[in-house]
């Protein structure tokens, strides 16, 4: 009897591991193809297509990117600056609002909570949002066009953080600090904020990934200011140009002159690799926090 059960358990372990290895391979293989393509000689790429076993290896694409002082370096720096500013500002306003909402004694707490939650249910949609930012706040073709619309703070993060303050930061400690003579700012900075570090890290991560991956703000709000492009905008623009030329190649006689402005396939792949690189590099360090965050707020997401 016992022997049979061990056998079944063993079979399940083998079966489960095989399935998960397949899923893991499926998750990674496209990235590997991208990486290999970026190290493939361009003429081999054009001849044989994207391949896991390139005919000829080459690091030309990376040489090109890092030596020719092109738009990639600028876009890369832009992405880092945007992400850093977005995380710092977004985290600050999210944490402060959530902390306030967690104060049970606060007059009008219910009303303010409702105002926050309501934004999860109903929004002004793309057109009014666009007109508001473009016409009222004039963010078009400025850094604020990348920073402000949508990404800085969202109700979901606020509510997640609020429930952490309510359950994870005991009221008694905060009240004790207050009784000891700390003012509200000190209580927040010295006691509540350090105690909330796990959730702060998670929210910072959510905001940071949101900014790093965003292409939509640049797409909508940057029309002339291409010097403000982030890496995502740059990649997006290249893809569009290729698509445009392919769809119109029969009608445009000077297609070749247009093609010259689009970098070689391997260079495009190398740029995409650069776009993923920061995420892959920090991923091992952040994935625990990330999983925890999703679990915390998950049911409500």
């Amino acid at each position: 009897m016992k022997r049979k059960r061990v056998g079944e358990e063993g079979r399940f372990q083998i079966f489960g591991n095989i399935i998960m290895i397949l899923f893991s391979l499926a998750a990674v293989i496209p990235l590997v193809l991208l990486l290999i393509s970026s190290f493939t000689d361009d003429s081999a790429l054009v001849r044989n297509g994207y391949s896991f076993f390139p005919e000829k290896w080459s690091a030309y694409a990376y040489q090109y990117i890092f030596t020719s002082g092109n738009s990639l370096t600028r876009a890369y720096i832009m992405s880092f600056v945007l992400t850093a500013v977005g995380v710092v500002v977004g985290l600050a306003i999210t944490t402060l609002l959530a902390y306030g909402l967690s104060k049970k004694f606060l007059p009008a707490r219910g009303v303010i909570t409702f105002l926050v939650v309501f934004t999860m249910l109903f929004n002004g949609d793309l057109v009014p949002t666009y007109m508001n930012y473009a016409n009222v706040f004039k963010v078009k073709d400025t850094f604020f066009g990348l920073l402000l619309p949508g990404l800085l703070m969202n109700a979901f993060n606020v509510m997640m953080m609020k429930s952490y303050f309510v359950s994870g930061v005991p009221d008694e400690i905060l009240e004790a600090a207050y009784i000891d003579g700390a003012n509200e700012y000190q209580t927040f900075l010295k006691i509540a904020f350090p105690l909330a570090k796990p959730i702060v890290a998670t929210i910072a991560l959510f905001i940071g990934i949101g900014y790093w991956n965003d292409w939509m703000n640049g797409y909508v709000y940057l029309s002339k200011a291409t010097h403000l492009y982030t890496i995502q905008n740059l990649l997006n623009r290249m893809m569009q140009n290729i698509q445009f030329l392919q769809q119109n190649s029969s009608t445009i006689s000077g297609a070749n002159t247009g093609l010259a402005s689009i970098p070689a396939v391997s260079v495009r792949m190398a740029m995409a690799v650069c776009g993923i690189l920061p995420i892959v590099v920090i991923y091992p360090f952040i994935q625990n926090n990330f999983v925890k965050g999703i679990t915390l707020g998950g049911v409500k997401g």
Partner: protein
Amino acid sequence: MGNLSPAPLPLPFRERREKVAVIKEKKLTPAKRKALIKRSIPIYIMMLPGLIYLVINNYMPMPGIILAFKKYTAKLGIYRSPWNGLKNFTYLFSTPDAFVITRNTILYNVAFIIINLIFAVAVAIILSELTGKLKKAYQSIILLPHLLSAVIISYLVFAFLSADNGFINNSILGPLKKDPIGWYDNAKYWPFILVFVNLWKGIGYNCIIYLSTILGFDRSYYEAARIDGASKWKQITKITLPLLRPTIIMLSLMAVGRIFYSDFGLFYQVPRNSGALFPVTNTIDTYVYRALIEQGDITKSAAAGVYQSLVGFILILSANLLVRKLDPDSALF
């Protein structure tokens, strides 16, 4: 953390202690109310930046939805343009677009909900039963695609599907002596491609909640079942799945509440905005976007947007009501 005893007071700060006590009372005398308000002011100041952002980002655009009921001219602006009744909507619904985008949005979401559910639960169950050290690694690896931007994903898909250089045409169909396929010109493949890409991107994310729920189950059920000689399959179907049912229902209801919204990046970037694919890739979100940015037809875009917001609002509200009936703790509000 809740059972921490109150910190002992080093000195009798009587005044402050009274203020704390005041806050816990329901009925306030004017003097006490004043103390309360005085204490609340710093908190309001702390909340102010966040609230200002909500006003700018969420509340100021809201009145703009009246645009959908106006005959808009840029010169007059939203508020001074003349009213147009429901004409923008009758125009929208008289085109075949309205039906196509509604159908696409709903059908894709239904497919996503069902397929994502099956795979997420299956992966969560497998991960929860695995004993080796690799478990954690699997979970991290399958979550990775969730962190990639839509632009990057479109590059990855393009590497496989590009007509000239794509991996599938060159390295799979080529050696099989099959004709290359113009993936980006043939609409019939795309429902499958999009469902697949969505699954690939979301599986690591979707299984997390199920996995953490399963890990929270009382292990004694399983021990009892094992002693009674229940097979692994029996344990999964008779213990894990029934216990998981409330979570499955909750998450699915939440997803149904968002059935009128689509992942803009997935439907816009991954098919590379290819016109030939619009019949199967156009959703309400991409339609609103294209009408605004590519066609500059502001009222059409606004009408479709309001259509989405209103129906979406009703759906989210009803889904949440249902969830609150079933399990008040999982409700959004």
